């Protein structure tokens, strides 16, 4: 329960009175607030059509100039010596960087600084690699990577500290990543541990960036890189062990952050990771101990976790597909329970399906209800097929099953109606 101050309570009281007077529901207010927020967000960045067309031509012109320069360099590359090669790559990159700094220092030319920095970001490392290739013997690419990316990362970081352009932070982090990958390769470090350390650092940095309005636009790319590195590290240690489920806890934690702090990219990534976690069966454990019930117990725990996460996700402003989560989660949990019981006690699992139906009413979820009813029918069919098939009572059993299914359908329709009415 959220605690409100006296002033906030007064405000809420007024809002409720206005809602009653104007026949508005909570959903209407929420929708209007979301639209207002959206308008406020886009308001500051709104640009006129003329300016947009001007920008489009500017980008196209810039791209053509860059493409022309690249083709020209490629054409004359074999005919020129080492020094010209370095001058046209590193020289161009460094000049672009100096131009970027000069533009950034003057408010009138500030907008021109960004394309100059982009050019510098591409050409400087290229130029440094050419310099190494032309003048320094040796073919250690990892050492070369360290030598190139370390000074560039420092350069971009210092420039970012001075001018606070978010793009400079992006370049600093990308160079830093390049340096880190080269460092791991050069010293032949444990890749799993390196991925975990690097992924955790990057993920925490990106989370921090997400919390700061100014740097939010940079987070999508970093969330992709950070989560891939982070989960590569996590799976290096827990993958194919019975501790595989820790990965699900981590994904759900990130999902919670994504919803609460409104990161659409992280939200989509988490959805993909969760789908991946449940596709192909629960868990992936192997190497710690050989327990017969490993998959079943994992299905019960992770399935229940999915139902709870789906229930929480109802609050999300994004498309959450929470009914699908709750349906899959309930099916996993009940399926796991059914397989967990020894044959003689399998009818008890049918009782658990009954508990799930009760839970569906509490959670007001028709998806849980549908999964519970379907599971109950499946259990009865599977159990009777296993124990009564090929007996004289089998046809009678089939008829009884038909009646059960009809009853289950009737029950589903009634309970579903109740859930709809109470929701």
């Amino acid at each position, binding site marked *: *329960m*959220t*605690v409100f101050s006296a002033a906030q309570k007064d405000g809420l009281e007024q809002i409720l009175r206005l809602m009653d007077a104007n026949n508005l529901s909570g959903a209407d207010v929420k929708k209007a607030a979301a639209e207002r927020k959206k308008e406020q967000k886009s308001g500051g960045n709104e640009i006129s059509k003329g300016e947009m067309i001007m920008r489009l031509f500017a980008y196209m012109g810039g791209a053509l100039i860059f493409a022309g320069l690249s083709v020209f360099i490629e054409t004359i590359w074999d005919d020129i010596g080492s020094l010209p090669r370095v001058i046209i790559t590193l020289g161009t990159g460094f000049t672009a960087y100096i131009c970027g700094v000069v533009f950034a220092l003057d408010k009138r030319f500030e907008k021109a600084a960004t394309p100059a920095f982009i050019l510098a970001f591409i050409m400087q490392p290229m130029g440094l690699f050419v310099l190494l290739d032309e003048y320094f013997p040796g073919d250690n690419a990892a050492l070369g990577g360290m030598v190139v990316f370390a000074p560039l990362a420092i350069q971009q970081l210092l420039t970012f500290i001075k001018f606070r352009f978010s793009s400079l932070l992006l370049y600093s982090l990308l160079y830093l990543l390049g340096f880190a990958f080269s460092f791991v390769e050069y010293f032949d470090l444990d*890749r*799993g541990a390196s991925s975990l350390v690097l992924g955790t650092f990057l993920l925490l940095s990106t989370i921090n960036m997400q919390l700061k309005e100014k740097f939010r636009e940079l987070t999508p790319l970093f969330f992709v890189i950070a989560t891939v590195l982070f*989960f*590569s590290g*996590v*799976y*290096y*240690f*827990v*993958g*194919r*062990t*019975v*501790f*595989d*489920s*820790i*990965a*699900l*806890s981590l994904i*759900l*934690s990130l999902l*919670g952050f994504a919803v609460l702090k409104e990161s659409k990219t992280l939200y989509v990534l988490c959805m993909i*990771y969760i*789908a*991946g*976690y*449940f*596709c*192909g*069966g*629960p*868990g*992936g*454990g*192997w*190497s*710690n*101990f*050989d*327990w*017969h019930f*490993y998959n079943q*117990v*994992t299905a019960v*725990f*992770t399935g*229940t*976790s*999915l139902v*709870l*996460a789906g*229930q*929480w996700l109802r609050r999300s402003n994004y498309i959450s597909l929470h009914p699908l989560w709750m349906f899959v989660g309930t099916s996993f949990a009940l399926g796991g329970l059914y397989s967990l019981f020894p044959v003689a006690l399998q009818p008890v699992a049918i009782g658990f399906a009954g508990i799930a139906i009760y839970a569906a009413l509490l959670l007001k979820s028709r998806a849980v209800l549908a999964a519970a009813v379907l599971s109950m029918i499946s259990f009865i069919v599977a159990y009777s097929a296993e124990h009564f098939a090929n007996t004289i009572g089998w046809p009678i059993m089939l008829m009884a099953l038909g009646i059960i299914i009809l009853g289950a359908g009737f029950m589903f329709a009634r309970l579903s109606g109740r859930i709809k009415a109470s929701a």
Partner: protein
Amino acid sequence: MKAFLKDNIALVAAIALPALLAVVFAISAMAVRVSVEDPSTDFFIVTDYYDNGSRFQFDVNNERLNVNYRAAEKDVSYSAKPRLWRVNVPEMTVQEISLNTPGGDGAKTIDIPGVTDIKVINVSPGPDGYSFVDSYRPGGNIMTEVFSMDSQHRNRSGIAKDGRLVSFKIPDGNNYNYYNSRFLGWVVE
């Protein structure tokens, strides 16, 4: 904090449940490690091995490990040379036994001192109650398949008894040679 937890209790429980499961498994793994005695019987395995495609053939007969070799025939292609290993328990260290290719034509029986002249049995479970478990099992979710490519737990084999699994790794072993690995027999010298 308390208010946050109360507001988001479903999410907190969703996060806690899989973590709790890992704790349950950790305790169970510890319990079986304490309650099930250590393995005590060394054993032989062969990796990179195709039953029919290899010029080396292995089988256990009359409590002896037989290693046979057939010379190459014209127009018949053979798989790469298999690798024979003795796994020392309980340390679970592996020792490769070199397979020398004999010269001449026809089929030959290869004698390897310390391998073909000792008592070996092929039963499951073995004398100490442990059974061989191959790590190459299909399945696992997509996340595991995608992200645990470099996992230190990938490409391991092991022996299991009453829920306890003791694993080992072949040096330079990859998924490919594990897929073609065979358990040969227990050493009962």
